[in-house]
């Protein structure tokens, strides 16, 4: 293989994982913008997506086309439940309390998954075939193509949702000024629940897309989710274009450093760069 083919291969791999990080990062941003907290339960939405897909395929025998949207919908529901039972009852305005609260919810979700699906690693079949495609000498799994296509679609839908639908506009209003939004009659509580639903959906989607490539276990989402959080921070927390940019950059950085330096330390390089960016530009790349 030539140097160019290697590079192409690493870039493809980077964009694929970058797309996943971007989806997770968007989930973090949605909740942060409307409620103003970091929702650490986002990492478990990712694992849950994979788990529901697994159950849909193998427990209820659904075909992939049905199981996938069902899994995403199920995680969306979990998101609403988390908001209703976990976050909303807290009257605290204290940042620390709210962050630790979502950490607690995350522990509960992980415990629940361990209980229902066990601790063993499981395998989820890919959406499309397993025969790699060859583009300019680089091999790409069909699953990677599926990830890119579905992620692009999802981001497109999200843009439309925030610009063209009533609920999306309400969410932006609440994000920009909660009191003012309430004054003009926007149901702030329902919008907050919707933002958790959206975060659940995005996390779940990332989960169903990524688990065929990784393997599935109750804690698969932790490192993925934290990298998604890192991507959101890198791009500027709360900024949607920032989240996508941060995700892609983080994915590329990781795969290039794994390719040209050391695959054992790829997590280190990703986080070190993140720390350096934060130290130079604490608001993130596109943060305000």
């Amino acid at each position, binding site marked *: 293989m030539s140097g160019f083919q290697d590079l192409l291969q690493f870039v493809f791999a980077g964009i694929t994982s970058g797309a996943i990080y971007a989806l997770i990062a968007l989930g973090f941003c949605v909740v942060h913008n409307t409620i103003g907290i970091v929702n650490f339960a986002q990492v478990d939405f990712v694992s849950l997506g994979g788990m529901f897909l697994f159950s849909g395929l193998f427990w209820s025998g659904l075909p992939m086309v049905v199981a996938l949207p069902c899994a995403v919908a199920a995680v969306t529901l979990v998101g609403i439940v988390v908001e209703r039972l976990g976050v909303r*009852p807290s009257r605290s305005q204290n940042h620390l309390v709210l962050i630790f*609260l979502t*950490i607690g*919810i995350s522990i509960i979700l*992980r415990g629940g998954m361990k209980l229902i699906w066990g601790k063993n690693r499981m395998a989820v079949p890919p959406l499309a075939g397993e025969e790699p495609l060859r583009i300019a000498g680089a091999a790409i799994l069909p699953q990677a193509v599926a990830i890119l296509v579905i992620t692009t679609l999802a981001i497109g839908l999200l843009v439309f949702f925030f610009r063209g639908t009533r609920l999306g506009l309400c969410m932006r209003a609440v994000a920009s000024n909660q009191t003012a939004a309430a004054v003009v009659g926007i149901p702030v509580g329902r919008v907050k629940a919707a933002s958790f639903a959206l975060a659940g959906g995005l996390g779940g989607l990332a989960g169903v897309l990524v688990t065929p490539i990784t393997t599935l276990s109750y804690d698969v989402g932790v490192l993925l989710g934290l990298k998604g959080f890192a991507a959101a921070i890198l791009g500027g927390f709360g900024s949607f274009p920032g989240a996508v940019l941060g995700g892609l950059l983080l994915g590329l950085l990781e795969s290039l450093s794994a390719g040209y330096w050391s695959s*054992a*330390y790829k997590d280190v390089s990703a986080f070190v760069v993140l720390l350096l960016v*934060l130290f130079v530009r*604490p608001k993130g790349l596109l943060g305000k």
Partner: protein
Amino acid sequence: MLTTRDNLFYFIYLHRTGLTVLALGVVLVAWPVMESNPYNLGLSNLIAIYAIVVLGLNLFIGYAGQISLGHAAFFAIGAYGSAIGTVTLGGPAWPVMMAVALVAALIALAVGLPALKLSGHYLAMATLGFNIVVYTILVQWDAVTGGPSGFAGIPYLTIGSVVFDNEIHFHYLVWTFAMVALLLCLNLVRSGVGRGLAALAEDETAAAALGVDTRRAKVKVFILSAVLASVAGSLFAHCYAFVSPDSFNIFVSVDFVIMVVVGGMGSIWGTLFGTALITLLPEWIEALESFKDIIHGLILVMILLFLPQGLVTGIVDAVRTRIALNRHA
């Protein structure tokens, strides 16, 4: 004119902190005499080691109002530093422990100076990232750290001819350190520096306006908590003679934070309680092994929802309010 009885009560009230420390000290000195089961002593020793970390972390979270999801990294630096310093480099244990604490302080300074400019989620991410970096190095750099299988053969600590090689000796060793840390924290929060930190946690701008050098104060308390965590890590390594990366991953950092929250953010005595509760909990609910995580999480969520000031502080506050209400009823 005060009666003798009043005087006695006043004396007790005036010296309540000192007397509680004294009582705790007496109980701790006598504890190995009453409890001879090495397993239970091992548990109480673990509480002491964790308490040293959590005391420092509580100063940082509870008093300075900052967030750290990466203190297991400093715990790791202490443990692995002592292991490598004594075994690989063949250094004497006590000076190595001090040198490692110094290294931890320098790392905390290097990380803290830029990181503490950040706040809230950014700080959470920076400390979390730091923990992941340290953990990955522990796992991957196996020529030095022993990799995933861990680092064995760390020598016991000695003072003169006394070798700290059994649970009773460990007890006196680790609890001495824990008590020193406790006294340090109790005194610190009553000092000008401690008051400054408390002001900082309430409102950074107001504290700065009142002349607290907020940036310097935050970095200082971060370094102090890192040093405490590092010393605790060294003790951990010398007592168990074995360390492995799993004792230092991000979930351990989260556990430290849970201990702070359960005990009460900003409550020094609560820290001891929270540490003990969370350390002992897995033992008590052993029968419910598969529910362990859920119970862990539920405790944290319930406390944050209903008693966000922590279990001890929350209950004390509730009782005080009730008494005050009854008095005026």
